[in-house]
């Protein structure tokens, strides 16, 4: 391949070689639009953070743009309250369990879908896809009965397994896109070199799609972390996720807004941390590896 111009350099070069007028028109308006969008995006989040730092009396009495007497009181309360801490722990647990299960099961399947042709493969793939679109509401009742019947009701396992409904298809779909990016010659060379399939898969293939596995794990984490309908339906007391605890945050004088806000802000943190690690591959992952 000839020396290819890196796209960033080209962008710089392009902008530098434009006439000043053109540069202004092309540069300013889009940037302004982007800034407006980002502002609109951050505003509700900012508002929530602001709420979390104010007391309920303060919130109900004035509409302030920023907290005048910020206090981390509610945060301390949450982090020291066993119900809340347990709830966060429960949520993190079933999300982690689900991610591991989904990704592990999806890896061989993604490989099979991409490399092989087998009876019913198109139908199976379509069925998987359709489960991605399954309305959780439709499954709330059947899951309730099902997990009660097998004795897993009100455990992290119930939620972890229930979330497989949509997360396994997500994992297969994204991973399949990344598997497609590995040339088949590599498989053939490994076979010629005498690798057994399990050895080849673990020592050669997996490192090549390490990015893809990371992105997939991120998405499984994300979709499981945000889903609350099934999580609250399938739990009662022992395995309450934070959403259930949040919906019970009443104080004597009505909704405890600042407590809710603080809890809300805390729930954003795991997501933000996880996405930071895969930020460079995010665009490709969102395109489900296929673009």
């Amino acid at each position, binding site marked *: 391949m000839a020396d290819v111009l890196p*796209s*960033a350099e*080209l*962008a710089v070069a392009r902008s530098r070689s434009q006439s000043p007028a053109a540069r202004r028109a*092309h540069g300013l308006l*889009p*940037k302004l639009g*982007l800034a407006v969008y*980002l502002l609109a995006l951050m505003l*509700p*989040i900012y508002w*929530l953070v602001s709420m979390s730092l104010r007391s309920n009396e303060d919130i109900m009495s004035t*509409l302030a743009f920023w907290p005048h007497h910020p206090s981390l009181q509610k945060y301390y309360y949450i982090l020291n309250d066993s119900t809340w801490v347990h709830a966060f722990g429960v949520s993190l647990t079933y999300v982690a369990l689900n991610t591991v*299960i*989904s990704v592990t*099961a999806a890896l*061989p*399947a993604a490989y*099979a879908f991409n490399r*092989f042709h*087998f009876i019913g493969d198109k139908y199976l793939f379509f*069925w*998987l896809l*359709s*489960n*991605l*679109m399954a*309305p959780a*509401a*439709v*499954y*709330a*009742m*059947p899951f309730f009965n099902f997990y009660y019947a097998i004795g897993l009701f009100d455990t992290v396992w119930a939620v972890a*397994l*229930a979330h*497989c*409904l949509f997360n*396994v*298809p997500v994992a297969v779909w994204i991973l399949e896109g990344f598997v497609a990016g590995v040339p088949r010659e590599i498989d053939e060379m490994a076979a010629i070199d005498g690798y057994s399939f399990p050895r080849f898969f673990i020592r050669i293939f997996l490192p090549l799609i390490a990015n893809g596995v990371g992105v997939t794990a991120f998405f499984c984490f994300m979709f499981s*972390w*945000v889903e*609350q*309908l099934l999580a609250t339906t399938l739990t009662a007391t022992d395995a309450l996720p934070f*959403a259930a605890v*949040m919906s019970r945050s009443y104080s004597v004088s009505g909704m405890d807004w600042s407590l*809710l*806000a603080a*809890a*809300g802000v805390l729930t*954003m943190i795991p*997501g*933000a941390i996880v*996405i930071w690690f895969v930020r*460079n591959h*995010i*665009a490709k992952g*969102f*395109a489900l590896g296929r*673009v």
Partner: protein
Amino acid sequence: MEKPLNNRAWLMVAPVFVLVLFSALLPMMTVVNYSLQDSMGQNQFFWNGDGWFRDLLNPSTEIGARFQDALSKNLSFSLVALLIEVPLGIAVALTLPRGGRAVGPLLVIIALPMLIPWNVIGTMWQIFSRADIGLFGAALTGLGLHYNVTQNAISAWCTIVVIDVWHWTPLVILLTYAGLRAIPDAFYQAARIDAASRWATFFNIELPKLQKVLVIVVLLRFMQTFMIYTEPFVVTGGGPGSATTFLSIDLVKIALGQVDLGPAAAMSLVYNLITLTICWIFFTIMTQLDRRRYA
């Protein structure tokens, strides 16, 4: 691309198959079971055939009317949301830089709304839209509008639309951005050499190359709006009245609230069938697009 026929690949697919079987198929069996029966309570069931289904699809029955109402609300919501989110998302994606160090952090910020648990989004907007403690609510009433989420049906409906746009436009942006990045630079260079205007470049190069991504985007967004539950539930509870009672909310109300298993099961099946059909349509469109590309 020729793929070797290997039925032993089923072994590799088996874990996924089993998992999804238990998550999807078996529970659906119980639903099918309930949808064909009626109950006098106390675990006594008798056969009802397609009775529930006929009731459901008959707008003159109570359940039929309710179903139609929720369905039409959901469809119009999906349409409006799509009409706003897709152009907006594409527009924002076009403004993002094509490379450089700002891209990573920008994408993370843009993706933030999607990382927030849905009940928290509901809570966030519940606060934000109140006229007394929220900026949004205060601003709108300050402008003189009759804005009240809990009492005004239009306010409630519009707010849900705004929430959904806020929440999910990032998905459109990120998918579109990925699609744009996949276009080789040479096309942009050729467009410059051909003295094409920005619009001409968009219509003749970017939009055609985004076809497949846009189909996926529309599919995902339509399906997600079609099964929306948590956000409207937290913010409006389905009200005022039944103004924001979308399909999922109604279904859960019937199923878990009133313990009317028969109608709820029938509704579940029809609901599921609709989503399956739409899914199949999109799947067909996507494979057609693929086939056309390689023609």
